[in-house]
């Protein structure tokens, strides 16, 4: 670039001609991108999600003392075990690594009652179909030795979105009471080990009930795409976030399932594993119910 040089205070260090050139270049470079049809619906969904997070954060701050006392009292039961340990559904202590949690791989009917308020995920020895009761029975196929957990929504107001979430991960998961407090807030679910291992993955599922979104996303079969990692992913050692959508015919009507995967490394193996989960999203067929965390 040429032109006038130097005084940083004049704001036009390289001359007006070069600035005009830069203007032209920027306008040439910026493409005219196509707007998604559901942009407004997604904006509404994000705003609702943010509002919920803020309410949860405020609640967490207000109850910090009480929760701390509760955690300390329940410390023996909630303390994370060594990597690879898992709780059997309804049990209160870790089982030995490599052992089969009783009933963890047993098949369950769609109407089966959820496990009794577990605070940790259960492992799946062989992988396969897992149902999230809190997500209108959405089923996914998970890889062998992955963990799963279902969290009910806590928002009693009728919003555009449902806030229940389903989780599956390559490492054990714990509920909110087992998660560290960061900046006065806790995640609803976090990794028992504190961070993703090399090649570790944490996948979250949300059922979107917004009729606008479900209408416009009907038949969604789009691929995964990279999104900016959410803070909740970064604090758990994630460096990449993948997101994807699928439409299902839930018992309560058509709904869009949003999948968000937090990855330590986005290598081909990890991406393929997430793709398989995304492509396996459905609501029919036999599956094991993911344990449901009791509302805090």
């Amino acid at each position, binding site marked *: *670039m040429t032109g006038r040089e130097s005084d940083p*205070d004049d704001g036009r260090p390289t001359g007006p001609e070069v600035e005009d050139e830069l*203007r032209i270049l920027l306008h*040439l470079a910026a493409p005219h991108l196509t707007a998604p049809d559901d942009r*407004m619906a997604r*904006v*509404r969904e994000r705003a609702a999600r943010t509002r919920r997070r803020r309410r949860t954060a405020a609640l967490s701050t207000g109850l910090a003392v009480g929760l701390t006392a509760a955690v300390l009292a329940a410390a023996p039961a909630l303390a994370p075990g060594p990597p690879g340990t898992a709780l059997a559904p309804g049990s209160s202590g870790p089982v030995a690594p490599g052992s089969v949690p009783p009933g963890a791989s047993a098949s369950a009917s769609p109407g089966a009652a959820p496990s009794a308020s577990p605070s940790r995920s259960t492992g799946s020895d062989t992988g396969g179909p897992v149902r999230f009761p809190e997500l209108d029975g959405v089923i996914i196929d998970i890889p062998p030795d992955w963990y799963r957990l279902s969290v009910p929504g806590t928002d009693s107001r009728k919003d555009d979105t449902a806030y229940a979430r389903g989780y599956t991960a390559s490492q054990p998961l714990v509920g909110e009471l087992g998660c560290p407090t960061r900046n006065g807030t806790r995640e609803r679910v976090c990794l028992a080990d504190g961070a993703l291992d090399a090649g570790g993955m944490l996948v979250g599922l949300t059922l979107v009930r917004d009729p606008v979104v479900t209408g416009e996303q009907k038949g969604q079969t789009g691929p995964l795409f990279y999104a900016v990692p959410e803070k909740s992913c970064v604090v758990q050692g994630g460096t990449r976030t993948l997101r994807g959508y699928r439409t299902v015919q839930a018992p309560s009507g058509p709904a869009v399932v949003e999948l968000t995967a937090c990855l330590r490394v986005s290598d081909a193996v990890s991406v393929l594993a997430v793709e398989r989960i995304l492509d396996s999203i459905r609501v029919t067929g036999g599956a094991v119910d993911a344990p449901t965390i009791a509302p805090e």
Partner: protein
Amino acid sequence: MRDATPDFEEFVAARSPRLLRMAWLLTGDPHLAEDLLQTALAKVWPRWEQISIDRPEAYVRRVLVNSHVSWWRRRWHGELPHDRLPEPPTDADPFEDVVVGQVVAAAVRALPARQRAVVVLRFFEDLSVEETSEVLGCSPGTVKSQTHRALQALRGKMPTRELLLHGGHRDGA
């Protein structure tokens, strides 16, 4: 939650294309640009009734830029998968718009977030130094020095005027 007011939807419909292009210049990726725009709109929507009276676009622009700087501070500025790699103009066919676009985007994307924001606001959005300082919440002097550093950094990395005049323009553009 209240429904979006017609004014907000009208604003989104009318101004999003321009804001999306700005977001693309900030992020260098179409998906991230859409993500950034939606993030900004979602932040603005609950406060729309308060801000829509006075220069709503300036407010949205400010939220958009600050959201991007916030993303940058989270230290995620790794590489993104692309179908094609941007190539320097000397190695590629310099007379294709797509190459010009990619080279410009890569040069701008190499700037730190704050400098990138200054470049986009001043030279894409055509804001004055004072308006830019208002959006970024800093002094006009900071905008001037950031502009200076950004232009220094861009020197030699951008296609030349010669290229622009003889090979970089779209037909009929």
